[in-house]
């Protein structure tokens, strides 16, 4: 490397780090919608300076979006961005939200939720997050089972199948990841259908109810996602808006 091409090389490195920051943000999910912040349009800005200072700005569909989920997203984004090689300092903040000051201060100070909302919260958000991962397991179960049924399997046989029997797909791996996060059985030879709390196999007698609830949970999650995307678009007209019916 010569002195002459150094600025170009540095610019290239900065671009690579910026791209890595976007990828890192792509691993951060809205805990309620179970979708990456980048897909939802919640990242309005992500830049890295030559000195390695990452500036990330997040935005949400409404001024009054629930502060607990907002906090999780900002904190998770901060952790993901800070861990990117080449980032020396992370400035991650939420804009246009009633609790933005408390959230941004708390995340920058790595203070945790209870300290950030002193007097207004008694617990950290782990159990809230886990509740929503359980919903993601149910929603994912509907997606994966539909693929199994479409491949010609009888509905009644679903309780006999294993996770590995389901056709290989991103949906199946996503379901496996969510089950793993909760400590639920997630190997190929574990049952396809498990109770999202206990992890035990779903009994044939409970099949209809389990599938009905899985479908309902997916509908709810996707309808929420639809409302959120529409609201974000109404609030920030330059953001993308489409009906995603994955």
């Amino acid at each position, binding site marked *: 490397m010569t002195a002459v091409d150094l600025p170009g090389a540095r610019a290239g490195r900065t671009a690579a780090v910026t791209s890595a920051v976007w990828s890192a943000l792509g691993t951060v999910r809205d805990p*309620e919608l179970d979708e990456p912040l980048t897909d939802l349009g919640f990242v309005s800005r992500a830049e890295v300076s030559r000195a390695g200072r990452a500036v990330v700005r997040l935005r949400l*569909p*409404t*001024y*009054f*979006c*629930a*502060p*607990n989920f907002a906090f999780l997203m900002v904190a998770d984004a901060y952790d993901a961005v800070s861990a990117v090689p080449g980032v020396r300092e992370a400035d991650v903040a939420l804009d246009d939200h*009633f609790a933005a000051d408390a959230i941004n201060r708390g995340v920058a100070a790595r203070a945790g*939720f*209870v300290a950030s*909302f002193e*007097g*207004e*919260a*008694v*617990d*950290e*958000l782990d159990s*809230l997050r886990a*509740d929503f991962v359980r*919903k993601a397991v*149910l929603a994912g179960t509907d997606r994966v089972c*539909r693929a199994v049924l479409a491949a010609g399997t009888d509905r009644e046989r679903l309780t006999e199948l294993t996770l590995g029997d389901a056709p290989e797909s991103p949906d199946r791996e996503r379901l496996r990841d969510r089950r793993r996060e909760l400590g639920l059985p997630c190997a190929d030879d574990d049952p396809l259908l498990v109770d999202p709390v206990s992890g035990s196999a779903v009994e044939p007698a409970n099949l209809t109810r389990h599938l*009905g*609830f899985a*479908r*309902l*949970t997916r*509908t*709810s*999650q*996707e*309808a*929420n996602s*639809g*409302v959120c995307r*529409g*609201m974000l*678009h*109404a*609030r920030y007209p330059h953001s993308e808006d489409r*009906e995603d*019916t994955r």
Partner: protein
Amino acid sequence: MYTKDGEKYFVVDAHTHFWDASPDNWVPGQEEYAKGWIECFHAYQGLGPAETHWPLDRFQKYSEELMMHDLFDEGHVDIAIFQPTNLRQWYTNGFNTTEANAELSERHPGKFVVNTYFDPREGDAGMRAFEERVKRYGCKGVKLYTAEWMGDSRGWSLKDPEAARYLEKCQELGVRNIHVHKGPTIWPLDKDAFDVSDIDHVATNFQELNFIVEHVGLPRIEDFCFMATQERNVYAGLAVVVGGLMHARPKFFAKVMGELMFWLGEDKLIFGADYAIWEPKWQVEGFVDWNMPKDEELSDFAPLTTAQKKKILGLNAARLYDIDVPADLRLAEPPVVEPVGVPGP
């Protein structure tokens, strides 16, 4: 009334507002919240058809004439039910109060049902004022917004013992219809503010009351539906479902309607346009025209019949509120089939 293809629909819009969110009404020091609230509502309007969007200044404060026109001249509404939202912490004269609603209602006899509210944090004085409002305005329903801010409080729960006192009072006064609206901020903030388990709790304990969960518990439709299957006195308010999904997210609208019919059924769904977020005209017309698309993913769900749509658009709410429906707009009574060979009593 709305007529389409020879069918007549009696329309009860069970969720309407007459609000003032203009800057003149913002409480000094609370402007950002007052502004944030109405801009959030305005963004919801963005989910309706573009030709029905309003400029923000009209949306902040609209006239009585405009409301009467949009509901009754254009919107096919026979009777509209006011659902108040006080928000006095942010709006000097309140956002959409029982008093402002009642004043408008008195000028247009027979057009509105006036609901009021209670807030268990208002204690004994609140209880007396509640009883006065119920008697003065003849209220048969309340609208509860559990996430309303009051001082340092970020909301309340129907499980609070104070709330039970108010619900007992509702039973005593004949206030049978309890509309519940969940919002995003409730103490403690680490819990899910949209959790509907407090409604489950009181629906079990107060069997004489009807609990209408506004916007079908969105964003917790799944918890709401599951709860509603266990409580016979729980209903779904369709505000936001029709306004927010039917146009903007037609596929999810179909799925949500399918789920609501599946878990709750045709007798438990209550139409509400949520004016002035959305005008009723396009919602009523669109809902009558809508049906379940033929789609593999929706194959679990049956198409809606005309009779089911009539119930949802008005007859269900009319039943809850004892609204007299003209004879030609009712459903035909099912024929009484005399059992054969069984002696009468």
